[in-house]
């Protein structure tokens, strides 16, 4: 039972950190709180079903992507951001309304829906590995291609305009 309470706590922290992340004026602070959010989710995954995936989440998201963000922000050494003209409030208001609407709709749709099948225990890394490399090997290969192109793309984009 403790596990459920831990997961619920981590969930709440995740939501709060996400809220703080999107409201900070200074991008570095929002990056840090985003990192916290990733950690909480990693925790949820490990306690809930698969420590392997939780670890991957923490390593890749918190470790790699977040660092990338922080790096980019520091390269551009941005000042604090003024929160901009009022014109945005109208859009903000509608965006919030729309977001709340989506949440409410999802909840009503999934309320009381208990999926069939029995609840599994923790799923080991081997099982995940076998699923990836046997059943969905095609997806696995495609992802590798995607990653390569992303790397090349990033290098080309960020390169200074040298006369070639």
């Amino acid at each position, binding site marked *: 039972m403790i596990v459920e309470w831990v997961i619920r706590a981590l969930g709440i922290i995740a939501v709060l950190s996400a809220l703080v992340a999107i409201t900070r004026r200074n991008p570095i602070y929002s990056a840090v709180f985003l990192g916290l959010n990733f950690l909480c989710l990693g925790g949820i995954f490990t306690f809930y079903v698969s420590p392997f995936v939780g670890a991957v989440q923490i390593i890749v998201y918190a470790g790699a992507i977040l660092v990338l963000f922080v790096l980019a922000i520091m390269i551009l050494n941005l000042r604090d951001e003024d929160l901009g003209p009022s014109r945005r409030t109208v*859009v903000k208001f*509608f*965006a919030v309304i*729309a977001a709340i*609407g*989506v949440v409410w*709709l*999802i909840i*009503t*749709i999934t309320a009381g829906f208990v999926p069939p099948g029995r609840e599994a225990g923790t799923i080991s890394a081997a099982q995940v590995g076998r699923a990836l490399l046997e059943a969905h090997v095609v997806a696995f290969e495609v992802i590798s291609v995607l990653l390569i192109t992303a790397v090349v793309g990033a290098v080309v984009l960020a390169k200074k305009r040298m006369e070639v």
Partner: protein
Amino acid sequence: MEDAMLRLILLFPLAGFLFNAFLGKRAGERVVSWVGPASIFFSFATGVYFMSQLAGLGEHGYIRDVIFTWIASGEVSIPFSIVFDHLSGWMVLVVTGVGFLIHVYSIGYMHGDKGYYRYFAYLNLFVFMMLVLVLGSNLLLMFLGWEGVGLCSYLLIGFWFTEEERARAGMKAFIVNRIGDLGFILGIATLLWGSAVVSHPTVEFSQLQAVVPRLPEWVVLAATLLLFVGATGKSAQIPLYVWLPDAMAGPTPVSALIHAATMVTAGVYMVARMNFAYSAAPLAMDVVAGVGVATAFFAATMGLVATDIKKVLAYSTVSQLGYMFVGVGVGAYAGGMFHLTTHAFFKALLFLGAGSVIHGMSGEQDIRKMGGLKDKMPWTYRVFLIEGLALAGIPPFAGFFSKDEILFKAFASGHKLIWAVGIAAAFMTAFYTFRLIFLVFYNTPRYDESVHPHESPPVMIIPMAILAVLSFIGGFVLGFPHHSLIEAFMEGVFRHGVEIHGASGLEMGLMFLSTIVAVAGWAVAYRMYVVDTTLPEKIAQRFKAAYALLFNRYWVDEIYDTLFVKTYLGISDGIMRYIVDDVIIEGFLNTAARTSLGTGRQLRKLQTGDVQAYGFAMLAGVLLVLAYIVWRWAT
């Protein structure tokens, strides 16, 4: 009786046309002047030969020659076949005879003209087309000749096409003829499908003769009236006569041949050929007679004041044609044909005479600028006098007998009013004929010194002399009352005709009366134009309005022009520019094009370039889908 030689009558003028048209330019004037008249003469000779053959065949005899099947579609089959019977034989002789004389005359008249070969080519083509019209054994073949003749008159009127006026006159003649032909083709259609119901679709004259009595009244009436519309177009009767006065723009021999002797009589010939149909529809007969006498009177009035020598003769032709239609209209078909023949003689002669006057006066046509040519051109004067007497209807000349025949038959068959109007017209005819003679040949010359009239060369005088003899003896030889050769000759063809017999005493009385009227006309003209030349001015002043009305030909041309030509042009122009092509159809297309362009431009504004706006649109989309699922799932 079948005889394949009959087609020679047609082939000669056709050969003449082809030779002149294609080889004429190289062959030179000499050869052309031989080939042209020769082809007509040979045709005339074959005509005489066949006439002798015909005499042996009795009243209903005819010579037929089926050359080939022209149009065959479904059950309608129209052969290209020619029939030489009493009526068409007579017409062939008239056409080729007068035609030949006029061809000879033209050698002199057209001497030295650049388009000499072209002139003779058209003239030969005209005679060919006229013969097709006359000899054709069915209405459609007659229609072929009908329009072919119209074409030749178009070409010949506009012969000197370099002058704007003459080209316009040619076009006007052809279009007015076409209006008439519209009625003609509809008449053919009525008869064709009428006979289809009764027996089998045909327009052959022989078969129509049997079919028409079996057709109901209104079909025959409709057909005959429609055909008569065609006749008014071709023979220049009341509604469609406007083209004839302008047709004088053509060379004079053309006016003599086409607009006096042959083409314009086609309408009379058609009515005579369809006598069985017309006698089956008495109302149509009355219409024909009525229009005829109205035209006769109306044209005669215009003739009184015309100043151009050829215009006077043109109105006189229209008026005499009116008489012929009165003749056939009252059922005196033989009388009508008789007047047609004599008219061919003396009217052609009048035109040739006028031609030689114009030739002598080197192109001057206004009679007010002529005078005293009696001694300058003696032969022309003598010939002109003879035919003047014939036209006016002074006995013993031809005109008297034929015109009197018609008036007598009109009176005897009960058309009293028609007879009265006819007599009045006869008086006017006599008056304007002698007015013309006195103005041209008598008292002091009114032309200026530069002009020195000279007598025409013999090649023109001889044919005129022959025609003068014909118009002198023609009268009593062909149609002496009670034993007229022409009536007996055409008895077979007109067996359906209405038999009119009047007491001979009545006939003598009427003849005497019309002589007095003619002499009165001569006296009045003599008094006004020889004795006291100021009289015409005084009368013109006193009856100013009447004079203006007549002089401007009742403004008929102007009325037609504004009423039909301008409005028709206006409508077409209106349609073209405003209503349909530019506004409705094009407009519809352009608006369709513009609207699609407009909507495209509006939609472009949606792409604001703001990434978050796109994000918002996507979110809104998700929202809607989810809402739909909830709504769908909730119900």
